[in-house]
């Protein structure tokens, strides 16, 4: 999978990803995508391109557990988020919806860098650097492999005993 890096800072909370007040009028990801990061990067939503990946600092997705902060990102066509750490609710919600969360050192990735995500690592084609990624727990790998928690439950009907 190849991506273009879109770089954000530390502690990006879910209200910054999508403001709670936007959910008053619609939960449709195709509507919410227009307001992605509106408080901190008002130009971002209009400039999203296919193959963009979010590259953030520590504690991405902190604050609310709202899942629209994942579905709105997916609705914009973004399929991966890289950060040295995630808020655990965002991490779970991402996996459950098939948005790939990659825990890795993002400090040397710059805006617009071309990235390739291969198993267990991120290769920065722009700088020729390979960054090791933290492995996901087995159950998360199984959910991602199924395509998210919905297809996982359609297949298995339950969690493993």
């Amino acid at each position: 999978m190849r991506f273009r890096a879109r770089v954000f800072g530390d502690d990006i909370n879910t209200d910054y990803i999508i403001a709670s007040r936007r959910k008053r009028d619609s939960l449709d990801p195709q509507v919410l995508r227009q307001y992605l990061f509106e408080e901190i990067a008002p130009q971002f939503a209009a400039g999203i391109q296919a193959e963009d990946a979010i590259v953030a600092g520590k504690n991405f997705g902190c604050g609310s557990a709202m899942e629209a902060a994942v579905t709105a990102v997916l609705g914009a066509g973004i399929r991966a988020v890289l950060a040295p750490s995630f808020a655990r609710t965002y991490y779970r919600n991402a996996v459950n919806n098939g948005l790939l969360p990659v825990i890795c050192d993002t400090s040397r990735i710059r805006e617009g860098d071309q990235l390739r995500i291969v198993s267990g690592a991120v290769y920065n084609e722009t700088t020729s650097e390979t960054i090791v990624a933290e492995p996901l727990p087995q159950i998360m790998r199984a959910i991602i492999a199924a395509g998210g928690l919905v297809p996982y439950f359609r297949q298995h009907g339950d969690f493993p005993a």
Partner: protein
Amino acid sequence: MAAQTISEKILSVKCGKSAYAGDVVVCPVDCALGTDASTPMAIDYFEAMGGVRVLNPGRIVFALDHYAPAPSRHTAQLHQRMRHFAASHGILLWDVGEGIGHQLVVESGRALPGGLAVGADSHAVMYGALNAFATGIGSSDLAAIFISGKIWLRVPESIRVTLTGQLPAGVYPKDIALALAKQLGADGAAYRALEFGGPGAAALDLEDRLVLSNLSVEMGAKNGIFAADEKTFAWLNGAAGDPKMADPQTPDTAARYCREVEMDLGHLTPQIALPHGVDRVMEIRESAATTVQMVYLGTCTGGRVRDYRQALAVLKAGGGVAPGVQLVVAPASRTVLETLARDGTLAEFIAMGAVIGTPGCGSCCGTCGSIPGDNVNVISTANRNFKGRMGNGAASIYLASPASCAAAAVRGVVADPREFLA
């Protein structure tokens, strides 16, 4: 069996085998809360998963709290959908005006010592004050609970927070939480449990412990938990639940902690979190003289009876609300509102010109209630102050204790509440 933390013990009991930090366990859930902000999506996931029947409807509760009352046609329809789903599946639903789901879970005795309680809302961590393993989840995990009754969890490492000493007059549990957020940072407890203990924790009343557990998530914590004691059971005996179902857990003396933190409450001063981060904390006297135009008393952190009594004491000592300040009172539940009405507190707030909001989340996350205007400084008893959080990115939010918020209401500027408590 090796020594365990409280969280390791609870999850071991729940999954039926010895579990330690780092293990992934699958556990039956004792109580799961869905709110109007999370449940409509959970119903979508449930249907997409092929869900037909809710396995344990008696262990699930819904609260209409984020849009209370519904501020738009869309949110009113979300409420209709939840009411219909709850009625069809036999799920208890707390309707608009009953209060914030988290407050209702603890008021109704559904979060029990040794239990596993989750909520599709990050502040579900609050139930840890009752010795429950309690954490926030998303809508998809809630849907999986509808179908299976279970959740998978990675057993967290624990940070032991030992509280010693006694809070001085004018200093409150919110100040402890903000000081801890400053020390640990917004991600200092990420993926981990905060386990509160020590004589200072034992001395805190249950309502005070709720504040610390509630704010645990602002340090990234998976859960924030206390041991159960006579205060816990006194609370449960006053609640509607069944304390006989409790299975309280205490930590082993040799339990392993990834970090130990100690705080002497006797030296603590009133604290304030500056815009736009909960860990941007300083002593309130360093921020004194910042003007405020709105004072917000409410939320699942600071909307309980003792919060309003503490705020009212300062307001009365200071002679009421300063001109140009809007005071908003939005109690955490109908029971809180009724108590304030019965003891005369509510009438005093009304006489001071307070705007009384519907019990619920109010404008904490800008979904309904009083939205601040551009360039307005708000001081609030809430748990978050992110830019735009209360519905307007051009406003600035400060967080402090109810007494500190009241002191700011009196002066029209940030002020030290101890000046009013001679």
